[in-house]
């Protein structure tokens, strides 16, 4: 029943995208509610009083927060399902968690500095982001997905940031496609999955959004 699962979300959020993808992979019906982050709903504040952030998954009235925690919850709560998001082997599971954690630590904050700043700060961030992409490409190697043949946690963690690629390339003047061809092929492969293409907005729409956000950020200073 759709009323059992509610997702408090915000369309351009890469973290929200992760949860949308996981829910779609599992074929779970849910009610998506769009939050206005400048005017957070009482429900959001009640369901995530500590961080007051989206995404929040509400399952049978109980909230789960933090995107990767939600994704693992979805995998575990709907485990009698065709599409496991984590491997069954404990060592491979630890490996998947390691890379999901790496992505969480590096991509959002560094990427934000790349599209959000200029000059020296931007240059430094660009180098850091390049290094992260290098590391990820190395880990991906010749595999179809980060987990091998199975689309899984690490892919879910990273693919939302594909929607940032056009913005990153344009604002920081470099070509991710040229420098990281394997990563871009992987991303395009993921985007062929309905769960991903229905959850990750178009790069140009995100570009407009991020540029608008950048203007607002700078006008506050």
């Amino acid at each position, binding site marked *: 029943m759709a009323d059992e699962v509610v997702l408090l979300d915000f369309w351009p959020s890469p973290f929200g995208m992760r949860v949308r993808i996981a829910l779609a992979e599992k074929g779970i019906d849910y009610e998506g509610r769009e939050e206005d982050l400048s005017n957070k709903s009482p429900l959001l504040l009640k369901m995530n009083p500590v961080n007051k952030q989206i995404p929040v998954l509400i399952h049978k009235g109980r909230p789960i927060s933090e995107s990767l925690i939600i994704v693992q*919850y979805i995998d575990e709560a709907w485990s009698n399902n065709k599409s496991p998001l984590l491997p069954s082997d*404990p060592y491979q599971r630890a490996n998947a968690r390691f890379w999901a954690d790496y992505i969480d630590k590096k991509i959002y904050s560094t990427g934000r500095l790349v599209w959000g700043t200029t000059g020296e700060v931007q240059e430094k961030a660009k180098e850091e982001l390049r290094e992260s992409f290098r590391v990820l490409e190395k880990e991906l190697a010749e595999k179809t997905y980060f987990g091998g043949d199975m689309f899984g946690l690490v892919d879910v963690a990273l693919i939302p940031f594909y929607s940032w690629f056009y913005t990153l390339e344009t604002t920081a003047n470099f070509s991710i496609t040229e420098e990281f061809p394997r990563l871009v092929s992987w991303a395009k492969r993921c985007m062929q999955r309905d769960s991903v293409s229905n959850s990750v907005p178009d790069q140009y729409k995100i570009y407009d959004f991020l540029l608008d956000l950048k203007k607002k950020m700078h006008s506050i200073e």
Partner: protein
Amino acid sequence: MEDLKLHGFWYSPFTMRVVWTLKLKGLAYENIEEDRYNKSPQLLEYNPVHKKTPVLVHGGKPICESMIIVQYIDELWPQNPLVPHDPYDRAQARFWVAYSEQLFSAVVPLIYVDIADDEEKEKVIEKVQKLLKDIEDQCVLLDDEKKFFGGDNINIVDIAFGSMIKFLVTMEDLNKLKVLEVEKFPRLHSWFDNFKNVSIIKENLPNREKMCAIMKYIRERKRELQSSN
């Protein structure tokens, strides 16, 4: 005999988490004390991405990141379980484990406040106390009825927070100040007392003077490095 090796720093809260977990499970392992100023080639090979401790090596295969290691151990050796069985309880536990990382980031600056002015010191302390308050007030796992975050027995949340509060206590000793004030944080205070008294924890809690001494040393080394640049 399991082929287990732990590369760590005896004083690191992250290493402590793994030590406590291994001891709780009754697992024998080879402890390899790393020197943060001269990391072993093996460590750099096992954790090329972050080059950090702790790293658990099981049958020659490395596992990195303290709480990922703890979950790995718990999955292979289910005695004295640390990860809740129910998916929802598990998600709640993971949320608070993730929160403990925020606490760590807020506590680290306390290493260096000895030379800060009062205003700056206050700011750092306030930041830590805000996080502690959230745990004290918002964490439903912290119950007046229960001894631990895990209920009657410690679980991953106790391990995660236990290591961070131990680190905070070291900072209190280092700076001769009180952050985890009993009047402001009665539940947390009482929980930490219970935690410290769990026999495995008690036997594996580094000495307070030694902790203070090592932090002073790390602080001095860092300042030496900064002034020489």
